[in-house]
């Protein structure tokens, strides 16, 4: 009892130190994704922007694909030598790799070495992230008292969203302080370089922390695992829980998480919404929704983890189509009434890469306050027409979008808030770091991380087939994965509060 009281009293410090480090890791990781379109022009062969963008997306996916390897490597290390040492290593690796991305010369300067270095650093980021999350949640969970584990670990759960939020804020801040061209040329490097300061602060905080009490006790008693990998995945008794965690929880959580935040962001950008306004929509929705991670984490201590996570998945499955249809409708200017007196159109011609184009630029204003710049270019040699829209939404439409993304982030908080406590309680201390890290990073990293890539491909195929509402086709992937996960969750996860073996 006295020990528990002591642990609880020091818990805010433990939670803060763990959360700050994890937040910085996510910040580092998301910078790359948020700046993908700019980075692609810097590091991948110019001439074909789509190929360049896809190359970056592939690197983005590589960052996610490599995460499970980081989970296994650092998870094993964490179960062998301790949580504290391991997540200091992952933090340094992540911060160092992010800082170095900001220093890599462009493709124009050093040729193919540039993308090779960037992809290598990206892989290092993925490895580090694979080790970080399991360490931080295990560390906090092993300090937390029974009945409060959902609440305390939910602070770690906020860090992924807050990391995305901070990355968007820093990008907005840097972008706002210089011209568009300067940002594209060199300004994008600043958020990466800033990472070194964040790294130093975080290491300073973490280095002063004590080892997890449960791990320390095991170590003192000489009961730590000698082969965490074998015990985690080579033992049927534990493997069945690893599979249950993946298929009944993290897989669905991953796709709901990425759809509600990343895919939503990409979706509204693909509809032609202006860059800064798009970021603002997501920022506001994230700010209002983030406290709900704590709400649902704490609620899971009272009513159990399973049904909160299942409800989040169920709501996503049932409402993604109407939500995305509405998002499309809110942005689509063909639904709006144009004010002819305030709109203008000009035509001209231009030469780009030795090709002549006819260019029509329309500056339209609509009755709901929306403004749209529509540039139509016709290649005079091939007759190919390309249309680029830059849409600035009026207030009403803007807030509609905020609400629609807020709803999706609420689903994210339902599936993600309680999941750390759920995973921690599923596995014994001596192999906890290894056992929970792998299903988490396969679910979140692989199934979730591939949402943008697979969903974008589904939209392209549907468009090529000439499907009606092809823009919605990308939702089939997250809905399908979440549906399988929901069924497994409902039938196979016992509706009892899992407790640690030591409880």
């Amino acid at each position, binding site marked *: 009892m006295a020990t528990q009281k002591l642990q609880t009293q020091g818990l805010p410090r433990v939670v803060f130190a763990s959360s700050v480090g994890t937040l910085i890791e996510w910040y580092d990781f998301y910078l790359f994704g948020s700046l993908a379109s700019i980075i692609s022009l810097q590091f991948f062969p110019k001439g074909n922007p789509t190929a360049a963008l896809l190359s970056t997306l*592939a690197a983005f996916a590589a960052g996610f694909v490599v995460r499970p390897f980081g989970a296994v490597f650092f998870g094993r290390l964490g179960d062998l030598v301790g949580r504290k040492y391991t997540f200091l290593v992952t933090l340094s690796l992540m911060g160092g790799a992010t800082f170095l991305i900001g220093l890599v010369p462009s493709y124009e300067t050093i040729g193919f070495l540039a993308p090779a270095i960037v992809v290598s650093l990206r892989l290092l980021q993925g490895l580090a992230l694979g080790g970080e999350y399991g360490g931080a949640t295990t560390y906090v969970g092993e300090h937390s008292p029974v009945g409060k584990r959902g609440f305390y670990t939910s602070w770690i759960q906020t860090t992924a969203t807050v990391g995305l939020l901070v990355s968007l804020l820093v990008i907005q801040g840097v972008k706002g302080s210089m011209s568009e061209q300067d940002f594209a040329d060199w300004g994008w490097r600043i958020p990466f370089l800033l990472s070194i300061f964040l790294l130093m602060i975080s290491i300073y905080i973490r280095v002063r922390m004590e080892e997890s009490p449960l791990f320390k006790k095991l170590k003192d008693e000489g009961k730590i695992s000698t082969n965490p990998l074998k015990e985690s995945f080579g033992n049927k008794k534990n493997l*069945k829980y690893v*599979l249950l965690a993946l298929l009944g929880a993290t897989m669905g959580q991953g796709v709901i998480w990425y759809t509600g935040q990343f895919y939503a962001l990409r979706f509204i950008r693909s509809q032609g919404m202006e860059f800064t306004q798009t970021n603002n929509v997501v920022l506001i929705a994230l700010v209002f929704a983030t406290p709900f991670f704590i709400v649902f984490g704490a609620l899971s201590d009272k009513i159990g983890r399973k049904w909160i996570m299942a409800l989040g998945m169920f709501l996503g499955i049932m409402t993604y189509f109407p939500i995305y249809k509405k998002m499309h409708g809110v942005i689509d200017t063909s639904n709006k009434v144009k004010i002819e007196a305030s709109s203008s159109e000009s035509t001209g011609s231009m030469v780009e890469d030795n090709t002549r184009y006819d260019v029509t630029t329309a500056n339209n204003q609509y009755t709901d306050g929306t403004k749209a710049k529509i540039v139509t270019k016709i290649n005079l040699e091939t007759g190919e027409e390309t249309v680029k829209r830059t849409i600035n939404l009026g207030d009403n439409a803007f807030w509609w979008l905020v609400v629609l993304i807020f709803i999706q982030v609420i689903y994210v908080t339902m599936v993600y808030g309680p999941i750390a406590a759920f995973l921690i309680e599923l596995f014994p201390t001596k192999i906890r770091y290894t056992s929970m890290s792998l299903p988490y990073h396969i679910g979140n990293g*692989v199934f979730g991380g591939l949402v943008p*890539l697979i969903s974008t491909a589904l939209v392209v195929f549907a468009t090529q087939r000439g499907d009606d509402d092809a823009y919605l086709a990308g939702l089939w992937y997250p809905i399908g994965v979440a549906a399988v996960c929901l*069924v*497994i969750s409902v*039938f196979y996860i*016992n509706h009892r509060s899992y407790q640690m073996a030591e409880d």
Partner: protein
Amino acid sequence: MEFVEVIKRILGVGWIALGLYIGYDRIIDSYAKITSGGLSDQIFGWILLLVLNPIIVFSLVVFGYFAVIGEYAKD
């Protein structure tokens, strides 16, 4: 045996079948992408074939097997 336990075991067969079907379908799909000639399609195809596919097939088939033999029965 409880009704839910029976359902869990029957569904287990479904998970094995789903894993095998997705595996087969992904191999066909990935092969088409890898041989399409486009670099982005090739990368995408290899990711599906070497990363996503083995994870889906292994996890669903083994999970289904465990469900069939009653490993997920209430302890």
